[in-house]
């Protein structure tokens, strides 16, 4: 209803920052803010841990009706900021919507200049979201 999605909000927030140093600082600040929000210790399990990233990232998944919701946390600020962008942007979608998302959707954040999307683990996060959505049982 005219309200922007979290995805578009993040894309445009990053888009207005035209310098990569400033973009990195904003990710770090976001990572710092999110780190002070609660993330239950019980969520930091091995099963929730995303491997293949240079810092630890835990991804937690919930299903609300036909919508998928994700929470993420990393011990590195940069990765925590990216996990915030990714989980917020890709939460609230149906399974079909989520499965249709690709690298192009990730590229629109324009974070590749900081390191490739692969190195930052963004693609690994999206793949994890998709796998969790694909293998979860729909509620009732």
């Amino acid at each position, binding site marked *: 209803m005219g309200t922007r999605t979290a995805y578009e909000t993040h894309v445009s927030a990053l888009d207005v920052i035209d310098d990569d140093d400033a973009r990195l600082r904003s990710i*770090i600040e976001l990572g710092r803010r999110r780190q002070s929000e609660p993330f239950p210790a019980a969520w930091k399990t091995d099963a929730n841990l995303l491997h293949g990233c*240079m810092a*630890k990232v835990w991804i937690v998944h919930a299903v609300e009706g036909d919508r998928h919701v994700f929470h993420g946390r990393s011990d590195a600020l*940069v990765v925590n900021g990216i996990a915030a962008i990714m989980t917020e942007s890709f939460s609230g979608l149906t399974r079909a919507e989520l499965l249709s998302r690709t690298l192009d959707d990730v590229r629109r954040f324009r974070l590749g200049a900081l390191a490739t999307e692969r190195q930052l683990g963004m693609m690994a996060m999206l793949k994890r979201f998709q796998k969790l959505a694909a293998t979860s049982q729909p509620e009732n």
Partner: protein
Amino acid sequence: MASHAEPLDVARVRDDFPFLDEMVHGRPPVYLDTAASAQKPRAVIAAIRDAYEHGYGNVHRAVHHFGHRATEAYETARNDIALFINAQSADEIVFTRNATEAINLVAASYGRSALRAGDEVVVTEMEHHANIVPWLMLRDRHGIVLRVAPVDDRGIIHIENLAALLSDRTRLVAVTHCSNVLGAVTPVRDIVRLAHDHGAVVLVDGSQAIVHQAVDVRDLDADFYVFTGHKLYGPTGVGVLFGKGNLLAAMPPYQGGGEMIERVSFDMVTFKDPPHRFEAGTPPFVQAIGLAAALRYLTAIGIGRIADHERSLLTHATAALEDIDGVRILGSAPEKAPILSFTMDGVHPLDLAVVLDRAGVAVRAGQHCAEPLMRRLGIDGAVRASIGVYTNRADIDALAAAVRRARKVLI
């Protein structure tokens, strides 16, 4: 060989490295990740180009001019490498893809032919995964027993701790010559003597050591010595396995295919002698030629002179980083290669590395393919700055300044 009349002229060396003409995020590069892979001098790039342009044909198979030239250059490279590490013969030099493949070759070929279930292999806590995983695989498939020698916080292997693990069941000791995390140089000669007293052979992982010091495999009396070309200013795709002639001669092939056979029928196959027995398929001969060019380049500068230069930069870097609040340097072995790992209190190594990259400073962050060592040190990861022949004081000063600035952003 502690002092050399003329110190290294680093400005001249830097002219030999084209990567220094690049700009990184608008700044000249400060490349402090040589331990992951070294940049290449023009001499290496030219040798590779020359091999492709003027002397390219498959080796060992051709009667034509190009094949002869390539074969000659490849076998000359083998000889150059033998001389570089003072092997008795070029036949003791096997070309592989990298150090990892060289260790896998020994684990698979020597491991499965000379070791029996219940035989013991000893490694240390300080090994790179390349010198752990092949032995774990041999354990799981072949039933050997793996023992792990401890290191102390400084990165020192105390020979008595190692001795306590050795027995008449010990068949092989696989040890790094220099830690890729702590820079600690290990007492290889003592380890070899001890292992030989127990009738065990020794594989030395020289991937980091050979970049910073002269290596004499006969003086060390190492049975196997492996290293990787790309860290030694050579190309990717080539590694070296040195093995004593009598050991290689008794070892079965690692892979099968062309180049490594004498005769093939559907009833039987006979294999060539070493080293070709272990080089199935078209080998990385252009890369080997490039690696030989790297060794010539380093030899012309002088290995001792390079080591002196790097040692003084390590001292400078250690002092500069120690001076920064919250920085903790890992590893303080008395003999330390120019590899400087550190942590910063309250800062994740990845965050630090990403912020340093924005300042044009290339370092490595993470576990450095040495998870067991990280666990032993009680840390999740570290930042590693490593020094090479082209590193200068300005690089170190840029690192220290960037670390100070990063601390302000990240704390």
